[in-house]
C-alpha cells in the first residue's frame, strides 16, 4: 500500500477519465498490479481448496470412469450421487455423524464456558498465585497428548467412562490454549471500563457477564471454531476410549471405508466430503465473528 501512495501523485490527470479500478480507500490501482494480486490470490486459493475440490470431483465420478487417468480429468464424465448413498450403505454414517455432533457440540459449550470463566479469572481477578496458575496453563500446552493418552485411558476406565461419549469429551473439555486466548482477550480490555462499572456497583459476575463477555465475542467465536474442529477431527483419543462400533465418531467410522483388502477411492472421497461439510457450514456462519476476533481489544462505541 505504501508503494502505491508514493507513486500515485505523479500520475497524469488525463487518465482520470478512464474507468478506474480503486481500492477500498478510493485510491487507484494499476491494471497490471490488480491482475497480479488476483493471480496470487487465485494461486493460494488453488493450493488450499484444490485438494478438497479434487475429492469432491472424485466422489462424484461414476463407477466406469478411470480415476487414475493421466493426465487427470477434473470434471466427472457421468456425475452421480451414488457414492454418497453407498457410504450410507457401508457404514451407519448418520449415526456416526450424530455422535460426532454430540461430542463437538459438548466440546464447544464446555470450552467456551470454561475458558471464558478461567480466562477472566486469570486476566482480571486478583489473588495469590495468579502468575503460577497462568504458568500451569502454559505448561499444560507443552504436554503431548500421545504421551499421556494411556494414563488418560486408565483414568477414564477407573471412572467407568470408557466406551462413552462423555469419556471422549472430558479430557478436551477445557483446552489450555483456549484459556490463554480468552485471558489475553480479557486483558486487552481497558481497566477503566470495569472500574467505571465497579463504581456503579457492579459485582464480579455482572462485570464478567455484562462488560467483559460482550467485548470478547470474537475470541469466543475463535474458541468455538477451534473446539468444534478439534473435537470433530480428533482420531486417536476417540479410537482408544471407544470400543463399541455403535458409539464411534465420524472420523473413526469413516476409517472403515479404507478397506482391508481393496480401496474404493470414490467411497473414501464421498466420506471425506461428508466429514468436511459441517466444518465449512460452521465457518460460514461464524466467519463474521472469526475475523473480528483478530482485531479485538479496541473499545467499541
Amino acid at each position, binding site marked *: 500500500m505504501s508503494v502505491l501512495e508514493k507513486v500515485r501523485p505523479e500520475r497524469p490527470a488525463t487518465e482520470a477519465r478512464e474507468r478506474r479500478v480503486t481500492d477500498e480507500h478510493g485510491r487507484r490501482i494499476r491494471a497490471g498490479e490488480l491482475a497480479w494480486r488476483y493471480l496470487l490470490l487465485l494461486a493460494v486459493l488453488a493450493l488450499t481448496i484444490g485438494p478438497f475440490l479434487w475429492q469432491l470431483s472424485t466422489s462424484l465420478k461414476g463407477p466406469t470412469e478411470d480415476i487414475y487417468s493421466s493426465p487427470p480429468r477434473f470434471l466427472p464424465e457421468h456425475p452421480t450421487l451414488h457414492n454418497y448413498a453407498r457410504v450410507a450403505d457401508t457404514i451407519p454414517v448418520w449415526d456416526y455423524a450424530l455422535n460426532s455432533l454430540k461430542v463437538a457440540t459438548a466440546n464447544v459449550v464446555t470450552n467456551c464456558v470454561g475458558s471464558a470463566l478461567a480466562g477472566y479469572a486469570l486476566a482480571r481477578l486478583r489473588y495469590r498465585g495468579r502468575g503460577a496458575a497462568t504458568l500451569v496453563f502454559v505448561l499444560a500446552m507443552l504436554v503431548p497428548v500421545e*504421551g499421556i493418552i*494411556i494414563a488418560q485411558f486408565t483414568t477414564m476406565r477407573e471412572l467407568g467412562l470408557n466406551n462413552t461419549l462423555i469419556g471422549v469429551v472430558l479430557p478436551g473439555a477445557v483446552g489450555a490454549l483456549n484459556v490463554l486466548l480468552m485471558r489475553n482477550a480479557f486483558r486487552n480490555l481497558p481497566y477503566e471500563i470495569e472500574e467505571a462499572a465497579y463504581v456503579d456497583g457492579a459485582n464480579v459476575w455482572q462485570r464478567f457477564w455484562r462488560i467483559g463477555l460482550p467485548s470478547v465475542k470474537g475470541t469466543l467465536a475463535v474458541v468455538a471454531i477451534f473446539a468444534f474442529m478439534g473435537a470433530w477431527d480428533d482420531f486417536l483419543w476417540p479410537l482408544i476410549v471407544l470400543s463399541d462400533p455403535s458409539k464411534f465418531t465420524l472420523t473413526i467410522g469413516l476409517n472403515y471405508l479404507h478397506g482391508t483388502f481393496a480401496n474404493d477411492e470414490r467411497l473414501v472421497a464421498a466420506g471425506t466430503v461428508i466429514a468436511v461439510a459441517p466444518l465449512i457450514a460452521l465457518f460460514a456462519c461464524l466467519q463474521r465473528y472469526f475475523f473480528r476476533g483478530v482485531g479485538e481489544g479496541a473499545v467499541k462505541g
Partner: protein
Amino acid sequence: MPISRRSLAAAALALVLPLSACGSGGDDGGPTDASGKVEGDITFQTWNLRANFKPYFEDLIADFEHTYPGTHVKWIDQPAEGYPDKLSADAAGGTLPDVVNVSPDLVAPLARAGLALDLDKAAGTYRSEYLPGAWASHRIPGMKGTYAFPWYLNTGPLFYNKALFEKAGLDPEQPPKTYDDLFSDALRMAEKSDGKVATLANVPTIEDFGRYGVPLMNRQGTAFTFNSAKGVELLTRYKELYDAKALDPQALTATPESAGKKFLTGAVAMNPGSALDLGNFKKNAPSLYRNIGITDQITSTGHVNMYVMGVMVNSRTRHTPAAVAFAHFVTDARHQMSFAKKVAIFPSTAGSLDDPYFTKEDGTDETRVRVAAAKSLKNAVNYTPVLFSDQMKTALRNEVAKALQGRQSPEEALDNAVNAADRLLRQG
C-alpha cells in the same frame, strides 16, 4: 506429520504397557484350562472387516451360538488405522476383548505382557488342523508356546505394466525373474523414460531383505542381523536405483497404498499385489487393466513372502473354554474356506489349499492368480520377524531413507537400524 505422531504414541505405549500390564495382573484371570463347558458372554474383535463382511461374521456368530447354547458373542470391529495403539491401550487398561484378531507382530507384546493364552497348552489338540508353518508363525522367539490360532494367509504376485515395458524396449512377455534382472530392467526403464517411469515404488522393507536372502535375526531371537554383507548389498543396489530414478523419488514416504496409486497412474511399472487388485484395476484404471502383466514374486531364497493373520485368546478372559472354542471355530477349515470364497485370502488349515478352488484353472486372470498364489503358499515364509515391531519398522525406514539420500553409507544405515532395533528389543 502422521508418522512422527504415531511413533511418539507407540514409544509412549511401549513404555507404559509392560508396567501397567504387570500392575493389574492376576486380579480377574479366568481358568487357563479350556476343557470346561463352553458357555458365557465373550467379545470378539476383528480388524477392519465389518464394512465388507458384516453378513459373513453375523452368520458365523449365529452359527456358533446355535452350536453352543448358552454362549453369546459380541462382535466389535476396529478401523484400519491405529490398531496397535488401540490394542496397547486396551491391554494397559485391562479392557482387551476375549478373542482378538491379531498379526504375529501384534501378538508379541501382548504375549510378553502375559495377556495371550498359550495355545500349545490350552488347545494343543487343534494343532494338527493347521499348516505347520502357519501354526508356528505365532511363536515368539525367546518364549515357549504359540499365542494365536493362524487365520487367513495372504500372498500375491508381482504386477507389471506391459505398455511401459514395451515403451522402454523391454520384452513385455519376459518380466524379470531374478533380482539381477529386476535391477537391470529398472535401470533401463529409467534411462529410456528420462527418469519419468520408475520400476519400484517402495524402499526395501524387512520382508525385502528376507526375500533377498539376508538372515534377519539370530537363532535365539536376541539380536537382528540384517546388517550383514548381503543386506548391505541389497541396499547399495537400491541406492543405485534411487539415484537413477528407477526407484520412485517419492518412495521414501510411500505407503503400500500410495505405491499402488502410482502404479495405477502409470508412474511406476511394477507393484506387488494380490488377486483382489485385479478387480481394482478393472474398476479404477481400465486402461491399465488391458496392459497388466502378472509374474511371480522375485525371491533369491525360493520362498515367497506371506502375511499371516491370527486369532488370539485373552489369557484373562472369564470364559476360557468359550473363547478358545470360538477362536477355533473362526479359524477352522470350514469357515476359513467360506471366507476365502468371499475375498481373495488363503486358508491356513491343512489340506484346504488342495481344494479344487485353489488348484483348477478356469481361464480367468483371477483364478490364474489365485492358483499360482496357493501353489506358492505351500512353501511360503512369513519373513517379518515376530519381534519386529512398528517402531523398529520406522527405524529401519528412516535409516534406509538417509542412505538412499546419500546422507550415510548403506553400511552405516543398516548398522544404525540394527542397533536401534536391538535396543527396542531389549526394552521389550
